[in-house]
């Protein structure tokens, strides 16, 4: 497939308290985004088991984005610190598996950052378009 026609499939995990609210605000503000992403709500970004990310990437998803509250602001105190720490290990695991680690990204979006939500999503879709399809 030509890179330019490639429409990646993006999975976004968003924590219920900050990032999902940020996504709601992006919606309320009618910020336009590419249709490529599907969002799965979880209670905390720290709920996202690395295994889920790997399974997604090995079953047809081209990129996974985890969004949580800003460090220090997790609704559950320190959930997103786990997200961050595990993210580093997960990236090297992906490289080891032969998957570009940039197909996985973590971002912090607060409830008032609708604009940031839309920017992160747009940017990530673009980055994954540039990398191209994930052929395992």
């Amino acid at each position, binding site marked *: 497939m030509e890179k330019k026609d490639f429409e990646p499939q993006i999975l976004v995990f968003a924590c219920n308290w900050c990032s999902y*609210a940020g996504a709601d605000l992006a919606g309320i503000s009618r910020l336009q985004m590419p*249709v490529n992403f599907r969002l*799965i709500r979880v209670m*905390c970004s*720290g*709920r996202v088991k690395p295994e889920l990310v790997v399974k997604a990437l090995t079953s047809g998803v081209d990129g996974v984005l985890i969004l949580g509250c800003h460090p220090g602001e997790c609704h*559950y*105190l320190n959930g997103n610190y786990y997200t961050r720490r595990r993210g580093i290990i997960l990236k090297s695991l992906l490289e080891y598996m032969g998957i570009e680690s940039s197909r996985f990204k973590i971002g912090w979006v607060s*409830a008032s950052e609708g604009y940031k939500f839309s920017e992160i999503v747009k940017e990530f879709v673009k980055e994954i378009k540039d990398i191209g399809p994930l052929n395992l």
Partner: protein
Amino acid sequence: MIEEKRIGVFICRCGNNIGDVVDVPYLVDEIKSIPEVVYTEENYYTCSEEGLNSIKNMIYEKNLNRVIVAACTPRTHEWLFQKVCEEAGLNKYLFEFVNIREQCSWIHSTEKEKATEKAKNLIKMGISKAKLLKPLKDIRSEIYPSALIIGCGIAGITAALNLANQGIQVHIVEKENICGGLLTEINKLYQTSLPASNFLDEKIKNLIKNRNINIHLKSQVKDVSGYIGNFEVLIQNEKKIKTIKAGVIIVATGALELKPYGLYKYKEIDGVITQLELEKMLKYNSFKAESVVVINCVGARNEVRGYCGRICCITSLKNSIIIKEMNPDTEVYILYRDIMAYGRELENYYKKARKIGINFIKYSPDNLPEISLNEETIDVYVLNEITGKGINLQVDYVILTTPLIPADDNTELSKKLKVPLTNDGFYLEAHQKLRPVEFANEGIYLCGTARYPSNITETVLQAYAAASKASIPVKKGYVETSGNIAYCDEELCSGCGNCFFVCPFEAISIKKDAENKTKPEIIGIKCRCCGLCVSVCPDGAMQQNSFSDKQILSMIKTMDE
């Protein structure tokens, strides 16, 4: 026995919000042929009486055991649909919400076909999750019977008195060293023409007298932890930090008047003042003028600040009338863009201003009035938008009507409370119409100008509303928290203890099972459903019923190619 799934899907048009972008009839057609989906319908508004009744009826009629609503956001409407399911005898955890508005129609409004396909896929993902849902029971916990109110302006005071008079302990945290907020600077209230202090002093007297109310002046909120029924709030004054326990929190932090530096020579020419500065002069009888110009919409409805200050037009009418009534010979000119005098009373008020001889001149935002200093007077040049003629005025004062703006510390406090702000920086309620005085986060309420500029009547109404909402859980004495707590499949658990170490709320203890093996035990009441333990369990033994690995994986598998 494997239970037969009987899924009902209700797709909402949300008026035009979804229906104009997403092809809802097509979705109904596509979804109804999915195995185990036994019923599908579209609604103009699923959250209307009609929509809700239809859900109930179909649960009976079609014997549904899973209900899916594809509509707006679970953050505002989940509770409503869950309640309806319960009323029809269906466990509320067998309900699944699919967001096709914020997640689809609103953000892909120009790509209708693609948005429709995405909505279809989102619903399918929801169906795959719903099949794996299990019925759960909520957990009841006691509520700490007190309220914490942040801000001691008229909103905070009204809410405090209301709660205290119901017998509820109230703590008010105020960063200034006096009570009363913005109202302390106001001269008279509009329409009644009564001094603001009459009204305020009375309230403050009652506040101080009330045994159920503790006022913490010169204090700021340092940190907030906990959840509805059980908040712990650290507050700091000059000397020390203390912890206050509260069942509910009300945000009543108010707003500030915009000081329009850089506009119309404010603070460059002496007689250029704001409405609030004028109020002070009027209050202390130090205002005298032969002629004044009032400029409305200063720093509002422009590129920097898109919103209308809502109460400023009326403030300008009020003070102009007061000036005119003090001395009918004073020339008063109001330069305006539009006069927002809403409601019958305010319309009459506007008529009165005209009748007593206040002059109204409409200016256009493309041709702002110009101010310059003459020897004795201030020169104002304005182009009358209606007649197209330029007008020169010589006046003693130029009064700038500026909007209320969000308090400086909204950003910081909103982060501590984990509640959202609007783009303009005011607090954002859970839902404009359905939940106007509370946040999506349970147990935190909102009133007054912290939310948006509002006049005293509106602020007081909101404060009553917030107080009565906040008193519900306190009076009930308990709150029900989510039943979506962690659970451990002991067959799979190897007893590693990861979950015990990771839980931020000490909701897991370690026990020995019958064979003397180490196993975790979840203390339901303490579990806050974060799912951290689920994510660290190497054996997949720890799960959460409404966000299990299986459910998430099935959603991922259902994503379009």
